[in-house]
């Protein structure tokens, strides 16, 4: 009996080795999609994948051929993302890479972009190091940390109940968290907003129990918290803060927009979180409302900013390939410079000078949702909008490859 098993096993292994040679159908244009499907940011990654898939479906064809998306799981780990990118470009011959959540992964890919030699359009990388980092590296998605900091500081100054509070800064311990924390502190000090801890606290990403950080906040006497967490940790922190009775006393301002699905899970504890974001489904203009319904009907998930960024980013990429007229990397990169797309949150223009997008943003506060087709209990109410000019850093020509 045992011998039978080992022989059948070796046949099984042999089959596995031979199986993966792909059969090439009519020549589609292959685009590599790198999103985290496992690990801490799995939910954000899934929504990004939906956004890109929706864009590909609606765009239909590029240069007359169908679009073929090849999705890979980065697990928010830079080494894995790099080897997956190599697989997509070398083995599957993808013409461009899109997606990526987390600055660490984005920077690791940017370092290897010369070897890969394909354009890389990031939709959820907020590090300011991306400005003019590399001629092949672009950003069209979530606001960068400096734009978010400007938005948040403007939002705080505009709201009397937020203005004269002392803020305790708490970030996730990786490059995006550090960048977001430093940007906010610098800008806040310039505008006279009181900061309790200028060398901000850095919490490990895998922190589950926030009680010791909350005790520190209670001990500090700060009545505001500026938090830079990965989207699905925001409601968790809010819930635990509420458990400790902080909800009424301390105002939470978030450097990233909390995911709607996670907010729904958090319930009433997640009310009262301020934050600037590109979009929320409370934005009501015809394109936005129409897009929300299309997204809801196809994926039955509450439309989130992660999905809409990726949708707009993908549209920019597909339009750029059409504009370039060929799948050559240099041509697509040239076409991407200065391209813009009118999406659910206004025109999103990729600056020709520093390859990063400029778009309007909204200041939001989470509260109980009115009745809505998505069944969401909590939603991000739009309080204010900031035009791109106010937010975006001035565009200078900075093609400096060796930076960061």
């Amino acid at each position: 009996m045992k011998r039978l098993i080992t022989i059948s096993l070796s046949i099984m292994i042999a089959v596995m080795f031979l199986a993966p040679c792909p059969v090439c159908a009519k020549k589609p244009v292959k685009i590599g999609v790198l999103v985290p499907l496992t690990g801490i940011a799995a939910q954000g990654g899934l929504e990004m994948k939906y956004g890109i898939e929706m864009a590909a479906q609606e765009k239909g064809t590029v240069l007359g051929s169908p679009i073929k998306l090849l999705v890979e799981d980065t697990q928010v780990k830079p080494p894995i993302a790099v080897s997956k990118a190599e697989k997509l470009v070398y083995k599957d011959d993808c013409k461009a890479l899109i997606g990526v959540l987390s600055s660490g992964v984005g920077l690791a890919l940017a370092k290897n972009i010369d070897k890969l030699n394909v354009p890389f359009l990031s939709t959820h990388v907020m590090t300011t190091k991306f400005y003019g980092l590399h001629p092949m590296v672009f950003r069209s998605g979530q606001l960068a940390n400096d734009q978010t900091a400007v938005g948040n500081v403007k939002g705080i100054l505009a709201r009397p109940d937020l203005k004269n509070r002392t803020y305790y800064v708490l970030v996730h311990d990786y490059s995006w968290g550090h960048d977001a924390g430093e940007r906010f502190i610098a800008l806040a000090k310039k505008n006279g907003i009181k900061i309790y801890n200028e060398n901000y606290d850095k919490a490990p990403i895998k922190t589950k129990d926030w009680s010791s950080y909350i005790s520190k906040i209670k001990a500090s006497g700060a009545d505001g918290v500026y938090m830079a967490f990965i989207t699905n940790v925001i409601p968790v922190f809010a819930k635990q803060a509420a458990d400790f009775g902080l909800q009424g006393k301390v105002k939470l301002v978030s450097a990233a927009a909390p995911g709607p699905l996670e907010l729904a899970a958090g319930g009433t504890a997640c009310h009262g979180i301020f934050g600037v974001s590109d979009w929320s489904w409370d934005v009501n203009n015809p394109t936005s409302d129409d897009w929300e319904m299309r997204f809801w009907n196809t994926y039955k998930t509450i439309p989130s900013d992660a999905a809409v960024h990726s949708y707009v980013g993908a549209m920019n990429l597909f339009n750029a390939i059409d504009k370039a007229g060929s799948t050559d990397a240099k041509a697509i990169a040239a076409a991407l410079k200065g391209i813009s797309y009118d999406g659910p949150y206004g025109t999103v223009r990729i600056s020709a000078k520093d390859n990063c997008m400029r778009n309007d943003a909204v200041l939001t506060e989470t509260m109980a949702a009115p009745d809505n087709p998505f069944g969401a209990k909590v939603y991000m109410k739009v309080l204010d909008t900031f035009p791109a000019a106010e937010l975006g850093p001035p565009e200078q020509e900075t093609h400096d490859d060796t930076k960061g």
Partner: protein
Amino acid sequence: MMNRTTTIPGIRSGFHPVKIVFIIILLSGLAVFPFVSGNRFYISLITEMMIYGLLAMSLDVLLGYTGLLSFMHNAYLGISAYAVGLFLIHVSPTSFWLACLAGIAFTCVVALPVGWVQVRTGGLAFALLTLAFGMMFHTIVWKWYDVTGGDDGLMGMPNPDISLFGIYIGNSGDPLVIYMFTLIIVTFCFFLTRRIINSPFGAALEAIRENESRAAFIGINVRKYKLLGWMMACLLASIAGALFILYKGYVGPSTMSAFAGAGVLMMVLLGGMGSLWGPLAGAVFFIYIQDYISTMTEHWEIFLGLVVIFLVLFMPTGFAGLAGHIRRLRKE
């Protein structure tokens, strides 16, 4: 009559003729492969398999030959990779050999005191102590943001040129050069380790594996030899570390994590303990499966778990064991 003075029953001196032919075919095939296929994905995949094969082999020196289970042997790969990277970034971006030497030397300097503490324990306490030290290194690397780049890993490592005795061989950024370099180094390490395992020193290690207390009672200083075995395994791991950062141009805390450590352990066990080529085969299989399954489906963890459970239950001694099994089949 057998020549009494030199033959040891049960051990043939040198390789069995069939094995020699097999090795020659394998090596020449690997050497020719990059020029034939030219597909850079498979070149980098095989380079990664060879590097992790070397790491798995170094763990087998500990587990298969000295009987010491180390949970996070990849920590020493990581330390060496960080040392080489930091040397190239900060000290001198052009001297290739000096950087590798610095990496290996630094890792051995770190591994010695850790080893001295480790060998005071044995069995499961030893394994869990390796977990403690491994997690300590992982956390230090993760928290030391301004030196190691924290969670984003080491960025901006230049690619020096490799030149041997004045002859320029190639730039270490070019995957082909690194592939050949790795092939040569891993083959050299394989035969060197095989030689050491068959030496009197290797025999002393095996005695410790078989029966530690009896080994002490025949005059072997068990702690000293365990420490030497540990240092040898860490040396090989540091060589793999230097190759790793040259191949990938990047190293991060996730390379030194507990899960990656257990992955290396799986390579050794699936490949078959106590035979040097077993872990190499285990590494090839494990990396292929991890890469292949994770592209197939979003829920790759379920299938990876099932494959591991299936293999541990039905292939107890790994590939090496399977080979032995087939040999016995042919004999019957």
